[in-house]
Each structure stands twice: as structure tokens, then as C-alpha cells.
């Protein structure tokens, strides 16, 4: 199987936990399928005008997901998906 890399902007349901003053994504539901997040690899922020967006680079056993959180309206988006080949 070939690796697949997609840039998306899909709304996604995210289950999170809060610990040590941090938001930690635990699982996501996308395209009617649940994915359990194994590791949060990197968290970074980026500005969109005055807005500060949070990006979570997370992965399960086969996929890398980049999730975007808009803290103003708590909207989660799946913006990038990489499936290992």
C-alpha cells in the first residue's frame, strides 16, 4: 500500500482530557469512524489575523492527524491526514 497524504479542512469530533493545564486529544471521530490517539507528537500555534489557532499533531498506529482547534468557538478541524504505506 502506498502512503497517502491529504490536506483537509473537515469538521471532526474530538474527545479530550485536561491535565497539567494542557488539552490532550484522546480520540477522534471522523467519517463515521473512531480513531484512538496513541501519541500527541507536537503542539504548536499559528496566527490567523488576531486569532491564535492551536494545532495538535497526533497519531494512532497507522495514521498521522493534524488537528486544528479554534479556541474562540472550540471548533475542531482535521486539516491533514497521512496514512503510512
Amino acid at each position, binding site marked *: 500500500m502506498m*502512503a497517502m497524504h491529504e490536506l483537509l479542512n473537515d469538521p471532526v469530533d474530538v474527545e479530550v482530557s485536561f491535565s497539567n493545564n494542557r488539552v490532550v486529544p484522546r480520540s477522534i471521530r471522523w467519517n463515521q469512524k473512531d480513531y484512538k490517539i496513541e*501519541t500527541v*507528537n*507536537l503542539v*504548536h*500555534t*499559528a*496566527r*490567523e*489575523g*488576531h486569532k491564535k489557532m492551536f*494545532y495538535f*499533531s497526533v*497519531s494512532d498506529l497507522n495514521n*498521522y492527524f*493534524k488537528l486544528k482547534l479554534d479556541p474562540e468557538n472550540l471548533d475542531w478541524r482535521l486539516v491533514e491526514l*497521512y496514512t*503510512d504505506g
Partner: protein
Amino acid sequence: MERIILHIDFNSYFASVEQQANPFLRGKPIGITGKSQERSVVATASIEAKALGVKTAMSTWEAKKVCPTIILWPGDPEKYSDITSRFNRILSEFTPNVSQFSVDESFLDITDEAEDYFGATCLAQALRERLREEFGDHITASIGIAPNKLMAKLACESVKPNGLTVVRKDDLIDFIDTRELDDLCGIGHRIKHRLNALGVETFKQLREFPINDLVDEFKSYGTWLHAAAHGHDSSAVVSSTQKGIRTMHSTGVKSYGHSYTLPQNTHDLLVIKRYLLGLADKVAWRMRRDKTLARRVSVFVRFGDFTGHGEQRTFNEPTANGLKLFQIAWRILSPHLSPHSHPQPTGRARDTDIGTTLSRPTSDRSQSSYQGLGSPPNDLVRLVGLSTSLLSSGPEQPPLFKKDRKMISVFSSLDKLQHRYGPGVWQRASTMPIEFKSRSSGFNYDHEV
């Protein structure tokens, strides 16, 4: 007191960040590219790709040729910029004397904090651990510690990746003599070739070469070369606050400029005009943001064969109006892009430039002949750029005509929008067909300037 300088440099920075973010890229040869992978270069190769012969700034097609298994990955400048900011914040936890050298390397004067080389080594280990906590295991850095910046950087670069190299004052000469001339920051290929032509192949030979002869050949640079070969460098670690830098809104800037490599090399004047107008608007927005006006515009193009043409024009009334800057720039540039009409397949051209193609005037290259679409690919325009200089501060002189005054008030509203929602919130209708994609480079990030 002998200074202790620490130089820290992330290893394969952009690639390591991507490998940290995406575990499926780890252990693989990856190359971080720009906006379009076909016309891009490898901004950073992963450690694995470097081991297979991929070099920084190699074109993507060449990288594919050298390493067919390379994964070309589009760069994410905003992510790297965030990591850079956090990196610099961490460095300032260790000492206030931090001088950023590029997006992924900095100098720290740790003389007071470390007290001696043992303390410096402990500090370096603590710094490395702090970076690991913040970013993870896969973003690593090499560290060099020495009595000055030049030697600290040379030490840092001697062991990669993830090295920690300490060179004390007494060991400087022995250490330098293990390095090649062009390992030293300040000796590039050209200087090296000129030194080789003088019979200087090693640092030992450079030390022994008469300083007067070096000065004859390199002017004042000869003195620097002589000192460098002895491991001397008195330059201070000057932090951005000491320099008086007020980040991006600095009034110390001398020019504003943007350039852009087009998605395809082109003859099409309309496409070139659109990009030039877009660049002029980018430059003008930054000037208005910084309350600055310009009295000079420079414009340049690069052709497919990497030759180019540039010119500038000075004018009396300072401006920060993108359209005015574009109009002046186009007046300068267009005579050097002689148009050739070619048949339009359908429709009727409304703009006089629609349906025309260009090429360089034959005076630029006597061997070539230019026939519109039939021109050789090397004569197509590859890159356009525009910059402004002769800057002054203050508001623009109110225009005479009502229409122009209205335009200034429109800009004021558009600028507020852009400030709030970021670049891309407005665009001229005439530039709608084009798109500027963000880029990453070793020294700055597009979205920050």
C-alpha cells in the same frame, strides 16, 4: 576574563520538526520543499536524506534523482516559526545574552552563567534536556562551546547530529587544524578558491601566509582571515534588545521588498503584471503598517536561464500606495520585456496587454531570437521582485483629486481588516487569478515580515 560562547544549531531543522510531528516520517529520507514541489528546492533534508546524498537547496528533481525514495514534504512555515519563538524563549531562560543567527541557530554568551567549561558543559546538557521536554526526542540540536563566536560555530558544526563539542582556548589551534578552510563561517567557495590559488590549502598555511599579502589580495578581509586562522574573533553576542531591534515593526529598516518565483516560467505579460501588482500591494501594506513612505522603487526579473534584469526609479512624492508603486515599477520594467503578439484562440482582447507575450530585447543577448510562444524556455520569466527604499515616516500627502483621497480612506479600512484577520483578507479583483503561497527559508518566514 575569558569569554565562554555557546553556539546551538538545530539539526536538519524543518525536517526534524516534521519527523517529530509525524512519526511515520521518522527514519526516512525526507525533503522539506516550498509551495510547489515541482519548481521547488529542498529547504531542508532530513539526516537520513543527507546520508543518501541530498543537499540543502538542491532542486527537487535533482533530489529525486539522487534519492528516488525521498519523501518530498511541503513546508509549514507557521509551525517552524512557532518552534523558533519557543526555542528563543528557552534560550533566554539560560542567559539574557542571546543573539539569534538564523531561524534555527543562536549564540549565547554564558561567561557569567557557566563560570568555567565544566559549568558550560552542564549548562549545555540542561539546555538540551529542556529542549527535549518542550519539543520531543526528534528535534535535536548540536552545540559548540568555545572562547568566541567563530570558534563556537566551527565546534558546533564539527559534530552533527546532536553533538556537543567543547574547544578551550589552549586547544583552538589543534582543533582548527582538523578542519577544512570552508568549514569556517566566512570562507565560502570563492574565498577558498582564491586562497587555494595563493597556495593556501590549510589553516596552518593560512596562519603562516604573510598578512600583508593577504591584505593585498583580500583588502580588510585579509586581516580577518589572518585572525580567524589563529582562532581569534572579538565580535560580541549582541541580543536583539541590545541592538535596539523592535521586531517586525522596527523603524530601522532601510527597504521593503518581496520577490516571487512564478508557478511556471512565462511569456505572459498579464500574468507578470498581476504578480508584480500583488507584490507591490504586499510591500505597500508593510509600509503602511509601519507608517512609512518610499521615494524609490526597484524592480527585477529573473529569466529561465537565471540571468536577470533590475532597475530602480526615484520619485518626488513619497508613497505607500501599492498601485502607484506597481505603475512606476511596470514603467521601468516593460521596456525591457519587449512584447510579441501572438494569435488569440478565442475572444477579443479588452486589455491591450492581453494576448501579448514577451521576451528579452535582443540587445540583452545577441545570440537569441525571440518569437513569442516559440521562444526558447530559458527566455521566459521565472521570478519577479519589487522593493522600495529612500524611506521616510509620516502620513502620505493628501492627494489633489477626490478619487485618490477616497482610495486612501479605503486603504485605511482594508489595513484594519488585514490587521485583524491576517493577509489574504482582501485582494484586488485583477489579482484574483493568481495565488501567493508561503515559503520558508533559513533566515525568515514570509508570514512574519
